[in-house]
């Protein structure tokens, strides 16, 4: 688990220490009052981070052309975005976007601009720093949609000029994330599916859609990058490990590969000065055997390939770009399942 911090014998808080945080009035106030973006809260004006300007912008239509996606004339239709239709989707010219109370719109990527001509845009300016609804600095931000089926105010960074608008949507309760510009990634295929007595998937929720532009990752030969979570073996140019690793198809193109043991090892094993030679062998895709030599002593361990935090992003980009995509038919009805608790999700029947 990434960044798991283990606290040993940490003193517990007393009830008194906990109870001082209680404030039911504040909780009730937040629960029954619609959440407003930070710029609508009077107190943030006082910070002096620039003038907030609310504009209603008519956006010139942009031609949406995506490879392998059929274009569709949606000019006379409203796109209803609600709990039953949570897909990243392309918003076309003259299309209203309406949301219901169960939908949140969040995490607008700064590279895109809105295509829809009827959306009211709220643009934060002049600062390039974004704030979330709690007033914290962040590159991401969110708007809680509280009204039912009315045109939605959506915040965008200023002066976006990309061609495609990507809505990232979630349930308020389960907060299932659909992310990526055009993919529902299949993740965590080892989750336990629980059946109730009627044979239904009780920890999954069925989502139906009647319009989707969805692409599903097809196979890639590359190993999915994983971030290092504990001590690592890092060899650099030593022992010829870097050269050897190039023979492994699943690691082609990756840089700064390091290795993490499958089982805990004594700390001294990680000390490179201890070893006269190190060899690596592939056991299976993703699992390798390290042999550590000193005089006539050989220590072996199973390791997996991981990436340090500084290299992980680049590795992930290489991985994602290695996929070829196939896309579902636009306009075709379908359904898929997501985990109810909003964790990593799977696609069973795209």
């Amino acid at each position, binding site marked *: 688990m990434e960044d798991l911090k283990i606290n040993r014998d940490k003193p517990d808080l007393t009830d008194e220490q906990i109870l001082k945080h209680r404030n039911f009035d504040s*909780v009730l106030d937040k629960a029954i009052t619609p959440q407003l973006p930070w710029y609508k809260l009077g107190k943030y004006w006082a910070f002096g981070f620039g003038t907030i300007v609310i504009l209603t912008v008519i956006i010139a239509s942009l031609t949406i052309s995506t490879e392998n996606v059929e274009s569709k004339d949606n000019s006379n239709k409203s796109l209803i975005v609600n709990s039953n239709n949570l897909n990243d989707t392309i918003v076309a010219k003259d299309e209203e976007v309406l949301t219901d109370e169960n939908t949140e719109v969040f995490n607008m990527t700064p590279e895109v601009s809105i295509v829809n001509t009827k959306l009211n845009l709220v643009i934060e300016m002049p600062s390039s720093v974004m704030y979330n609804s709690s007033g914290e600095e962040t590159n991401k931000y969110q708007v809680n949609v509280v009204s039912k089926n009315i045109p939605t105010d959506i915040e965008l960074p200023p002066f976006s000029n990309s061609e495609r608008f990507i809505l990232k949507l979630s349930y308020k309760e389960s907060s299932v994330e659909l992310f990526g510009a055009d993919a529902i990634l299949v993740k965590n295929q080892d989750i336990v599916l629980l059946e109730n007595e009627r044979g239904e998937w009780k920890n999954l929720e069925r989502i139906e859609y009647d319009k989707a532009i969805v692409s599903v990752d097809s196979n890639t030969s590359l190993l999915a990058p994983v971030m290092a979570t504990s001590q690592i073996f890092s060899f650099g140019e030593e022992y010829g490990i870097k050269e050897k690793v190039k023979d492994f198809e699943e690691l082609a193109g990756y840089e700064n590969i390091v290795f993490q043991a499958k089982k805990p090892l004594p700390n001294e094993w990680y000390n490179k000065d201890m070893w006269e030679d190190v060899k690596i062998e592939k056991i299976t895709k993703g699992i390798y055997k390290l042999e550590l030599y000193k005089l006539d002593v050989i220590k072996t361990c199973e390791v997996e390939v991981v990436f340090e935090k500084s290299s992980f992003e680049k590795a992930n980009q290489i991985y994602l770009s290695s996929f070829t995509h196939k896309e579902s038919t636009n306009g075709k009805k379908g359904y898929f399942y997501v985990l109810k608790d909003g964790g990593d999700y799977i696609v069973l029947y795209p």
Partner: protein
Amino acid sequence: MELINKKYHHSKSAIQEEEVLIKKAKQNPRDFGVLYEKYYVQIFRYIFKRLEDENDAADLTSQVFVKAIQSLSKYEFRGVPFSAWLHQIARNELNLAFRSKKYFRSVDVESNQINEILEECDYEPNEERTELLLNSLRLLDKDELELLEMRYFEKRPFQEVSEILNISVNNAKVKMHRVIKKLRGLVNPEMD
């Protein structure tokens, strides 16, 4: 294992009384205050054991109760304590926060609990194995760690664990057995 969460296991009459409180709160959110007072410390402790910072735990606890009030109309009484539902919301909020990297996961462990787990794994506790066990916690996935936490670090009975995780008691026991088996394999100093 000593049952320490005595407040969780209500009598039938206590559960029925709670049902009345919930119905009232559905009519008027201000009446939720009774439930808030009743469960605040429990939920706070649950969250604080998984977060590093007391103030972060307070913020997230507040958020849990906000969500609870907002979702109360969807809550259905199924004969189990209301706190199980609150814990589920807390769990969801924690998962969301960790996924968005707003907070980082921590786990609180006591030395006697580590020894207990080592003994469960049929190992004699010593310093080396303790270190290996603590390192092994990072090799558990989040569900495995959560189960271990609830049973060994928080001393929750399987009934309570199953209600919070929304799985059957048998399922919880099977999964726990698998976690111990995995830890037994991970806590192995020799790799020759």
